[in-house]
């Protein structure tokens, strides 16, 4: 019945909009990530030539600015036809709980996506078996980047654990590298925190943390904060002035030795900086997370009240298709969320990431919206900021616990 209604609604929209359709998609992909989106839009235009695509991007802060704008638009009653959101709790905890999104079950069934995507991912984007968004890519958050030539010159190797990292840090400092680790504006520090915490706790405890089985006030978590503080002592002091790209530049020019950043940095190194993988830039899992794949995915959902619903559904179909994902991901520097993608289209880094995606333990990223709702994450930034200035591990852990209770984590 519901499906029939949906269909009828879809048909009604089609007839009225078939002459000159419109589609507004909302994302934070601009600049370096723009071309990948462009490729998708081009594919869409080839398929639906009469539709005018309005590509609304709001840049900055790994999507934080875009999310603020999206909020005013959704509240204002003019949602974009489809918008980008990190797959998982970011969408679910913010928009699904508020009853603002359409259930995509029928679309997943008709497109055969319940088999095309891995089970873990489907669990992440669904509540009670209902999927809410179409994941288009998979990124890895726990990657440490370095410049192989510089490491050789300094005579250090890539540390495998955080205690080892701290030793390497001391060695590098003695060799005159003032800041062996580079961090940027505050979300990149939270990003680092995530890798330190998973590297200290282990993947299983990380999952327990978000299932509410492990408290933030647990001594293990407090110890993770303390390690994070020590790691931050290895970092540059002008962090908040740097974008993640500027921070990455410091690894290449040898000002710093390491940078923990998501694997979108691979695209930046290879495409923008024209460096060769393994020689121009190198990577390894962040210390302590060797067999763990901390994933995040970008996804698009369908808000209730979208003006051009049919066009939006066509857009979602394209995003979830093999052709769409293989057009998008090689340019974006991510791997396809589908398991059947054509690996020959991907670069060296992409191939290695795709291999890890299949063999590693997979957990969700906090900073990039997979494991915690926005109400937790947006306030958690302040906890990290306060920790960085006060270095009070117990206090930060208690604050995080308070936030977790408020956000209903583990309920």
């Amino acid at each position: 019945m519901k499906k029939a209604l949906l269909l009828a609604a879809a048909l009604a929209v089609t007839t009225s909009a078939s002459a000159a359709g419109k589609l507004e998609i909302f994302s934070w992909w601009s600049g370096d990530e723009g071309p990948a989106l462009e490729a998708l839009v081009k594919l869409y235009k080839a398929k639906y030539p009469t539709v005018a695509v309005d590509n609304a991007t709001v840049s900055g802060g790994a999507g934080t600015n875009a999310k603020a704008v999206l909020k005013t638009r959704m509240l204002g009653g003019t949602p974009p036809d489809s918008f980008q959101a990190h797959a998982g709790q970011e969408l679910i905890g913010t928009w699904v709980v508020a009853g603002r999104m359409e259930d995509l079950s029928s679309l997943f069934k008709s497109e055969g996506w319940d088999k095309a995507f891995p089970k873990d991912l489907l669990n992440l984007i669904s509540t009670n078996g209902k999927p809410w968004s179409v994941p288009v890519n998979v990124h890895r958050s726990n990657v440490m980047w370095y410049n192989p030539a510089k490491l050789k010159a300094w005579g250090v190797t890539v540390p495998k654990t955080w205690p080892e990292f701290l030793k390497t840090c001391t060695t590098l400092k003695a060799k005159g590298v003032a800041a062996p680790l580079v961090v940027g504006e505050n979300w990149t520090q939270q990003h680092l925190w995530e890798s330190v915490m998973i590297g200290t706790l282990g993947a299983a405890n990380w999952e327990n943390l978000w299932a509410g089985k492990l408290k933030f006030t647990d001594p293990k978590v407090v110890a993770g904060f303390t390690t994070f503080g020590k790691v931050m002592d290895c970092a540059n002091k002008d962090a908040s002035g740097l974008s993640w790209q500027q921070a990455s530049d410091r690894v290449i020019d040898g000002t710093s030795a390491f940078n923990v950043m998501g694997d979108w940095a691979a695209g930046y190194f290879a495409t923008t900086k024209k460096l060769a993988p393994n020689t121009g830039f190198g990577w390894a899992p962040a210390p302590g997370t060797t067999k763990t794949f901390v994933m995040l995915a970008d996804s698009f959902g369908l808000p209730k009240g979208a003006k051009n619903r049919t066009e939006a559904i066509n857009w979602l179909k394209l995003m979830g298709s093999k052709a769409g994902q293989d057009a998008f991901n090689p340019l974006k520097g991510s791997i396809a969320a589908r398991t059947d993608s054509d690996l020959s289209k991907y670069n060296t880094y992409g191939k290695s990431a795709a291999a890890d995606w299949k063999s590693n333990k997979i957990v969700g990223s906090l900073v990039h919206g997979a494991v915690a709702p926005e109400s937790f994450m947006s306030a958690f930034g302040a906890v990290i900021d306060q920790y960085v200035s006060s270095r009070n591990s117990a206090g930060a852990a208690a604050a995080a616990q308070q936030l977790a209770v408020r956000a209903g984590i583990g309920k």
Partner: protein
Amino acid sequence: MKGLSKDRLWSMAVLAPSVILIAVFVYGFIARSVYVSMTDWGNDPAQALALEPIIRWVGLANYQELFTGFLQGRFRQELVSTIFFTVFFILGCLGLGLGLALILDRNPKGEGLWRTIFLFPMSLSFIVTGTIWRWMLQPGGGVNQAPTLLGGQPSTFGWLSSTDALWKFDWNKLPLLTASVVGLVLIVLAVRAARSGDRTRTLVAAACAALLLGWALLIGPNVKLLPAPELHGFNLALIGIIIAAVWQMSGYTMALYLAGLRGIPEELREAARVDGANDLSLYRHVIFPLLAPISLSAMIVLGHISLKIFDLVYAMAGPDNISTSVPALNMYLTSFRQNQFALGAAIGTILLILVAFVIVPYLSSQFRSEEGHA
């Protein structure tokens, strides 16, 4: 007073739309904001963005959260930052503006050109100013590279990224500090009133001072807003923003002072000179006292601009730079990023109260005198 003629009715009819609009958009919305600030709208994520959110009355809980809540350290730092920002911004604008006006008052050649140069930033948007200065204050760029032009070493000061702070104090001591400062001010007032022979005022001021200081000494030290000490101070990262703000606004104070200086009749200066005053005492005893009301106006206008400042910080340091953040920016982020609408409304209301402290006495003093003979 003439009777209610047709013309008089017309004049009221003409005013009516504006009065209604202001009543709704200013006073109505303020009331609504204050109401929202006393609800829990946004505390439950499921209700925050729902089409028909369920909103409950919680009284002053949001305010309590802001001043004593464990998670709102950012807001408290911003409150401290905005006070420091306001003080230095006003001092900078008044100082630079007065200096420039005094120089221009001596009729240098090409006065119009100089004036144009000093005043043009006023016509820019804070966003434009912020964009320019953001680039100039990049770590390792612009201003920090300037010494190399003279053959020096580049500076490494973290203009917008420094995390150091000066004059740190424990937030727990805030009630104590406030009570002591206000108490001391009251003592000064009492002494002045005593000197001018106003007995009631002396007594009231002295009694209030005694009460406050007594509280500060006996009860104050035991008041704890927070379970643990929390240090706040003047963040060095604000310096860059203050400089940019002074760059933009000091032309304004210059224009005010220049108009004031030009308004001082030449005869007055001549008379002072005839009385044997040298230039220094001419300025001290004649000109500066005449400029005092201008300083007051400028302080009020700059003060409310500085308490509201938001766009400059947003454009210069970004929304996430905690060391440079101000309450006005936090209000936007809390409401539209964290979906905590009630908490955002509370921050907005606190800002309004701060501004009202500056503006209301000013407006009422401006108009009280006039109302009598209207």
